[in-house]
């Protein structure tokens, strides 16, 4: 074989290796983001599951506040039906606003506020909200990493034809990237 053919083969070999590395990297980053989204989804589900009990508890004391109950139930349904991270984040904010009004109603009923059941539900809800914000930090960080890989050279050349698309952040205000913590030893 002539010399140039060898060189051509060597170059092709290197290109294949680099492409394999890049593909694996993209898959790994996509899976990380997928896990991150699953983490948020679990907590959103948990939050939605707490709502009916909470509404029942408040209803026991303030049955006439029907408007607030309807609003909370609607917000919960919207959250359960949201499929993309962006819409889920918006629905989650909506639920937070509705719950704010529900708790404002509860303020007027000291017996309700002191009831064991209500206190526990409130605590579980706060815990779930903390966990959503923790899961959001992780998810957004993984999305940032994945998107950076997909949108920059060289993996950009690979991502487009193989169907790797940039993912949505879990954020009600559109694409807000979390700050990258860089570290010099």
């Amino acid at each position, binding site marked *: 074989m002539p010399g140039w053919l060898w060189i051509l083969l060597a170059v092709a070999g290197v290109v294949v290796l680099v492409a394999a590395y890049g593909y694996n990297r993209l898959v790994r980053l996509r899976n990380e983001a997928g896990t991150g989204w699953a983490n948020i989804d679990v907590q959103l589900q948990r939050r939605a599951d707490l709502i009916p009990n909470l509404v029942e508890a408040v209803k026991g004391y303030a049955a006439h506040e029907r408007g607030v109950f309807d609003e909370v139930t609607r917000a919960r349904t919207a959250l359960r039906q949201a499929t993309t991270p962006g819409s889920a984040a918006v629905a989650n904010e909506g639920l937070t606003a509705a719950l704010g009004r529900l708790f404002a109603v509860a303020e007027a009923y000291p017996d309700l506020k002191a009831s064991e059941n209500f206190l526990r539900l409130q605590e579980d809800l706060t815990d779930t909200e903390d966990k959503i914000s923790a899961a959001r930090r992780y998810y957004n960080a993984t999305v940032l990493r994945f998107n950076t890989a997909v949108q920059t050279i060289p993996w950009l050349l690979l991502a487009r034809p193989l169907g790797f698309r940039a993912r949505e952040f879990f954020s009600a205000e559109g694409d807000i990237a979390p700050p990258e*913590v*860089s570290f*010099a030893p």
Partner: protein
Amino acid sequence: MTLQEQIRANRFRSAIVVFGFALLLVLVAGLIGLALDLSLGAVALAAAVVYGVFALLRSRSMIAGFTRAHELPPGELVPLRRLVENVSIAAGLPVTPDVRIVDDTAPNAFAAGLRPEKSYVGVTTGLLSTMPKRELEAVLAHEVSHIRNRDTYLMTMATVFAGAIALVADIGFRTLAYGGRSRKAGALVGVLAVVGLLLAPYAALMLRMSLSRRREFLADAGAGEILNDPEAMALALRRLEVDTTTVRYAEASTAHLWVESPTERVGSHGAGILEFSSWFNTHPPMRSRIAALEEAGGFRLPERLPTDEPFATEVARIR
């Protein structure tokens, strides 16, 4: 370098270090074989391997024993467990580590476990009664970072290897001392063996210590990233620095596990002439750890620490 790149570099270094330790172990056994007796070298190596396997299998409970950490009874300190849960979720750990408590007034914490799924975080009661929630969360995030970065894995390996190397060197010395020299080795090889056996445990110790210091910086940065609040980590470190109590049951063998060096005041160690002695420190000086966080986060710590309510008081009040 971003944190992710740091973590990847960290794992690569881990592989090299484990390889280096194994090499050192074989070298020491080889020295014994060369200078004394080939079969003795083989026996020493076999003993080291048996010791190593046993120690690895038992490491979880051994560390708990050394540090006197006991499990948290179910239903106790639920807010603390929740903090650990939240931090683990934010760090992307697949499983939340257990929490263990050390009854000690000195504020400190550590992480242990070979795999993330089987890890736990130990905190002293002193930490809970000193730190406000925000800083406690940062300390927990620091420990969870150690677990995520596989530092606990590496440090356990390093501890076990250091022990195995000390064991082999010890076997060699005892044989030398009791006149077990059966091989007609040259004087040079004999001297070499003595020097090698003498230095090997220190080489292992130094390797182990330098390892843990680098990882402290990384875990600090990781905690800053997990919480999106590097200032909380810096505040926690400052509070640990100000506090002067030391952990009662701290031993040199587990010193590298803690968030702050549990046995001595690290803050006073500077650079310069003291450089050599600082090779044996498990932790870098607090000042440089805080400075690194300040640089990464772009903030300056206030002169005075916030006087927020400590976590233990907050929990007791809510109850």
